[in-house]
């Protein structure tokens, strides 16, 4: 009880600081210099309609490569931590009743549609809100649906690993292609920028975001698979 009181007091102090921040906050009336530079140069430099995508994939592309690396490490560590005690594939699950017809048919209907939605989101990442991370998360939600509908579902680990490895290597190779044929690492202009607003525009951004989407989807799916396949402690 004393502990709750101390915690509440500390958080009340923090709330006072937050209240001062909220009361003193006024939104900017004009873009700051960095944002202004991005807004003025996005069309001619990167050719991507979505400014956030231009920042994430091109201007701050190295950070995104680091981010994908962090996700890869997370997936690898989750797999490593949960690997011992792997149940054999054909071992009986702990008395789970068989999945019903409704769930099986429903998930079989929904999974292709969810995959299509995910692919749409990351292929259009330079034109509409969305991108590789969002699309990859949608792809992985199809894997989650399969696991929820049938907890005994087993994924083809080899396929997931192959997709992840190939898209990761291709991502780095595209970055190196930017270094060789354009202005720098992960520069998207070694492919033609195309007409502003077309699906096949913005140089390498759609390709890179597709690779990121596949990689993120594969990583999330492998995390879900690792977590679900450890059924006993």
């Amino acid at each position: 009880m004393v502990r709750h009181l101390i915690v509440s007091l500390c958080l009340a102090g923090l709330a006072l600081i937050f209240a001062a921040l909220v009361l003193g906050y006024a939104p900017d009336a004009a873009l700051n210099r960095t944002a202004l530079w991005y807004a003025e140069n996005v069309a001619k430099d990167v050719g991507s309609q979505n400014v956030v995508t231009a920042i994430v994939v091109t201007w701050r592309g190295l950070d995104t490569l680091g981010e994908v690396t962090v996700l890869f490490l997370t997936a690898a560590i989750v797999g490593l931590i949960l690997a011992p005690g792997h149940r054999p594939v054909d071992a009986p699950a702990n008395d789970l009743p068989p999945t019903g017809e409704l769930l099986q048919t429903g998930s079989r209907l929904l999974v292709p549609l969810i995959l299509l939605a995910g692919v749409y989101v990351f292929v259009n990442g330079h034109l509409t809100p969305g991108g590789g991370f969002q699309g990859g998360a949608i792809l992985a939600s199809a894997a989650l649906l399969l696991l929820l509908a049938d907890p005994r579902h087993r994924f083809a680990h080899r396929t997931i690993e192959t997709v992840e490895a190939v898209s990761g290597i291709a991502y780095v190779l595209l970055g190196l292609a930017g270094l060789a044929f354009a202005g720098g690492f992960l520069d998207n202009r070694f492919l033609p920028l195309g007409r502003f607003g077309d699906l096949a525009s913005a140089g390498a951004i759609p390709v890179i975001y597709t690779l990121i989407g596949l990689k993120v989807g594969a990583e999330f799916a492998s995390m879900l698979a690792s977590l679900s396949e450890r059924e006993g402690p």
Partner: protein
Amino acid sequence: MVTIALVAGFALILAGLYGALTNRNILRMIVSFTVADTGVNVVLVTVGWMPGRTAPILDAAVPVAEAAQRIIDPLPQALVLTAIVIGLGVTALMLAYAWRLFGATGSLDISKFTELKW
């Protein structure tokens, strides 16, 4: 508008911290951390909002020539995109460690783990 979003974000941060500090169950602590994480993201996105402007997407509604006058700051959004992904990675790691702790001791009560206590 902006005040509502800021207050909601800060309230989520406080609620998450309170949950993480007062709960003894590791799973509840993980959920609390994700709530606080969401609050930080809400605050960051709100700071990039500007009155009377639209999303940083230069489609038919926002001609390229007027972009500087019509869009909000895209940088906080790019930052939050990264923060969400990293937050998910951290949550996945916490869940995996929680699983291992449960496997080692059969308990998810944080006060049972006293090896690092002084």
